């Protein structure tokens, strides 16, 4: 390879990585946290009653149907989710159509059922795990479109940084396992290589699939040119591209028994070794009325698609989807599932999570390297102060994002239940915490701010289980007793992360000493 080419790629790698580094770090962390979105959701809604035992499903459906009948009799889409491993509770969801008279937008609503009291339970208003995970592609405060385009641009630069990184790494095989500690900038480069090269398959997959997920927006001119312009055309394009191959058959089930209970019972006898995760009633009282059964099982990485029940010519017909219609759509589907990782069991999910953190660590070490390299050959006084400011902001962002997430959890427990726009305020707390830690890092001396901020982070993470015990009726022992695994897992994870940050704080002190 020509040395000039490698030099050019080196330059490109440096600046492409640096320009969107902080945004990429934010995306990596919030996206990684999203792998545990329903677990976080359960923690942020402590009122949910967990149901680990097998319940009488007919009774449960009756309660859910009654609650849906009260809450949304005219909704076109009802869903009832049954207890599953990641969501061990009963939840009802419905789609509220936009109503111009009362000025309500089209939106999804949800309620949780307490089986013991046979009623829906009031849950605190919270932004939950979903908002936290959505931040990684909509950036929350900016308009959706701007968020999508900014994150896509950052992802595009990430892909370029990865490819140029491979090109400029001279000894990618010979230094595959190499980490030489306590050697200054050499060590930083080694650790940056380890964080990038070892999980490289994950990094490439997550970056490329991230681009694919938003390609309908970023490359929309292709659809405009080849399919048609405008909203309507784009929606038709998506529907056509996502089309499933479907097979239908008639079954001998009396049409008049087609109800939530009837459908569930039939599905459970027909597919004995699969667990139903939720049931939907779509377009009720219309010509298209049908029921959907979704299974809590994956075939490879694909969700075993739904089974739809409907009445046709006075007979009951079931419809099963078997794969995508087009082969490119199939590839897209694989990438989408790989990105979301919904198929992953608990072990693979933790691996996904740790690789996401390695990605964040890759960006973080890259940013630190950028600063260190520039410090060694500064030319002017002005450059020194610019680099010093960047170094300070860098510390603020790198530690600030974990602090912000912890504050998001704290806000969930400490904000008054009755406050208006409570979910919004939780998110405000997230960003305020981040800004404050950046401001702190800018004011404090560089030597001190690393350890100050890291100790603070360790402290607030370690206190989360205690906070949970004080403000709710959940604590580690009680969760263990009532086999509330999600609550227990969350509290223990917080202790673990707190310990990690404390370790990091000690290590930082040793490096400086």
């Amino acid at each position, binding site marked *: 390879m020509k040395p000039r080419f490698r030099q050019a790629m080196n330059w490109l790698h440096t600046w492409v990585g640096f320009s969107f580094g902080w945004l990429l770090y934010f995306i990596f962390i919030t996206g990684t946290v999203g792998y545990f979105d329903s677990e976080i959701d359960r923690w942020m809604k402590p009122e949910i009653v967990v149901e680990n035992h097998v319940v009488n499903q007919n009774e449960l459906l009756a309660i859910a149907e009654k609650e849906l009948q009260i809450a949304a009799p005219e909704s076109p889409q009802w869903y009832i989710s049954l207890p599953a491993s990641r969501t061990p509770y009963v939840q009802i969801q419905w789609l509220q159509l936009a109503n111009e008279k009362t000025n309500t937008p089209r939106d999804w609503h949800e309620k949780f059922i307490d089986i013991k009291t046979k009623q829906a339970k009031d849950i605190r208003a919270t932004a939950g795990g979903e908002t936290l995970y959505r931040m990684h592609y909509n950036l929350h405060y900016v308009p959706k479109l701007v968020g999508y385009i900014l994150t896509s641009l950052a992802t595009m630069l990430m892909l370029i940084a990865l490819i140029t990184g491979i090109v400029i790494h001279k000894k990618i095989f010979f230094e595959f*396992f190499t980490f030489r*500690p306590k050697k200054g900038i050499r060590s930083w480069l080694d650790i940056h290589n*380890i964080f990038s090269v*070892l999980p490289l398959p994950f990094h490439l997959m997550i970056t490329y699939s991230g681009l694919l997920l938003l390609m309908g927006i970023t490359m929309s001119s292709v659809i405009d040119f080849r399919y048609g312009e405008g909203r309507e055309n784009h929606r038709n394009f998506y529907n056509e591209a996502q089309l499933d191959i479907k097979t239908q058959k008639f079954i001998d089930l009396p049409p008049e028994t087609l109800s939530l209970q009837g459908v569930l019972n039939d599905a459970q006898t027909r597919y004995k070794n699969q667990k139903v995760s939720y049931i939907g009633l779509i377009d009720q009282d219309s010509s298209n009325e049908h029921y959907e059964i979704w299974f809590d099982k994956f075939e*490879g*990485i694909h969700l075993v698609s739904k089974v739809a029940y409907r009445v046709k010519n006075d007979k009951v017909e079931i419809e099963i989807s078997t794969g995508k219609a087009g082969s490119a759509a199939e590839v897209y589907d*694989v990438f989408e599932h*790989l990105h979301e990782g919904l198929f992953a069991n608990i072990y*693979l999910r933790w*691996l996904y999570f740790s690789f996401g953190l390695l990605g964040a660590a890759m960006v973080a070490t890259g940013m630190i390297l950028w600063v260190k390299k520039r410090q060694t050959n500064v030319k002017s006084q002005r450059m020194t102060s610019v680099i010093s400011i960047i170094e300070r902001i860098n510390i603020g962002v790198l530690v600030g994002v974990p602090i912000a997430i912890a504050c998001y959890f704290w806000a969930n427990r400490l904000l008054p239940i009755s406050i208006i726009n409570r979910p919004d305020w939780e998110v405000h707390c997230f960003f305020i915490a981040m800004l404050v830690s950046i401001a702190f890092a800018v004011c404090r001396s560089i030597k001190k701010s690393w350890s100050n901020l890291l100790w603070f982070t360790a402290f607030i993470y370690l206190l989360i289980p205690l906070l949970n015990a004080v403000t709710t009726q959940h604590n580690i022992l009680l969760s263990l007793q009532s086999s509330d695994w999600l609550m227990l897992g969350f509290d223990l994870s917080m202790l673990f992360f707190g310990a990690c940050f404390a370790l990091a704080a000690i290590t930082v002190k040793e490096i400086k000493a």
Partner: protein
Amino acid sequence: MIIFIETLLLVFGFTLISLSLARHYGQVNKKRKQLSTRLLWVYRLSGYVLLLAGVVLAIYVWGIILGLVYWLAYATLVTFLLSLILAFKPNYLSFLLLFKR
């Protein structure tokens, strides 16, 4: 059980490959820093054979996509831990120095 076998294949595969690299061989074998060409190829080939066996097993058990996902995920985990061991406690791997000669 299969995941255990898979992990074992990956651990030994990557460790053998790491020993075929002069720097890491020197870290593990303090007495003989030099690695003979014959030994290098013994380590390298046996390492790659184990890794290949891991891929075949994973694809056979879980299918192409999920098999590759599992293999790559565990490979990343194993190599990451291995690089930490090589950096801080390389003598943990000295039991693999079959030919002390």
